[in-house]
């Protein structure tokens, strides 16, 4: 594995870890439910970053398809969970 690929992986995966931490911090610190929901979504985006970074194997090589499929699955689950949580939040406000 060349140094450039490793550099890209660490940069992208590292930003993913930073996103996870930011989301986790916001989730713990802020009380409003909507902010917590956004924080969870930011965390999820960080996890997807990390998975995509793990799948990367250089610009000329096909990426590892398994983490990519996991990310696609994860996005759909995150969207449906967010929609359900928003509906719950709306009912709570009524």
């Amino acid at each position, binding site marked *: 594995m060349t140094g450039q690929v*490793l550099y890209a*992986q*660490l940069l992208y*995966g*590292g930003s993913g*870890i*930073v996103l*996870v*931490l930011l989301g*986790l*911090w916001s989730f*713990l*610190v802020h009380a409003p439910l909507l902010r917590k929901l956004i924080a969870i979504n930011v965390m999820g985006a960080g996890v997807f970053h*990390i998975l995509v*970074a*793990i*799948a990367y*194997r250089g610009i000329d090589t*096909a*990426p*590892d*398809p*398994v983490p*990519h*499929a996991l990310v*696609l*699955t994860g*996005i*759909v*689950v995150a*969207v*449906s*969970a967010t*929609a*359900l949580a*928003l*509906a*719950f939040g*709306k*009912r709570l406000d009524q």
Partner: protein
Amino acid sequence: MIRPLEHILIPVGLIAVGGLLGWSFFLAVTGEAGERLAAVALAHVPDSGVSNPVTSVLLNFRAYDTLLELAVLLAALLGIWSLGTAGSGFQPAASVLDGMVAGFVPLLILSAGYMLWVGAYAPGGAFQAGALLGAAGVMLALAGHRNAGLPSEGRLRLLVALGVFVFAMTGLLLMVVGDGFLTYPRGLAKWLILIIETAATLSIGATLAAAYLGGRPAAHPKSGEAT
């Protein structure tokens, strides 16, 4: 004023968690990887009926995952519907927005069809196509169409269940006549995947648009429709 929990304990804990995550990520990408699934998956792509590795993982090697994922979408929508009926929606759009929507929605549907077809050999597939259809629904809802272009409730129920139904029935049929649950025979794999993806696309699009409405469709969809 410094609150010890919020300003000291949580940041320190998060930095520790971040250090641990970063360290394990570093080890994961630099260390001796051992046998990765990528090699196995890429070696079997020619047998899977499609040439896009991601689609073959999603619809063939890990088809269970995708089936359950469609079930998650359906369950989320049922949860939203059980919380009550949708609101009254937005007011009908003025002519500029209405004209833009009238132009964009057919384009989105066309791109969804393209995405669905191209998923066999390039990035794309049922989820991307379904997301485009869902976006078309959201656009219609924002422009004041009260039901986001979705059919009446009876037909909508059939539509959102279609993906899981076709997927599960294909699996069960293959279990009875073939090699096992969702183990496609080699010659038919491409067509079975295409059938499942088409049903899944329609379902995903309808589910996303219906979830955006935020409740069960209103009993009288015609009232407030911006036609």
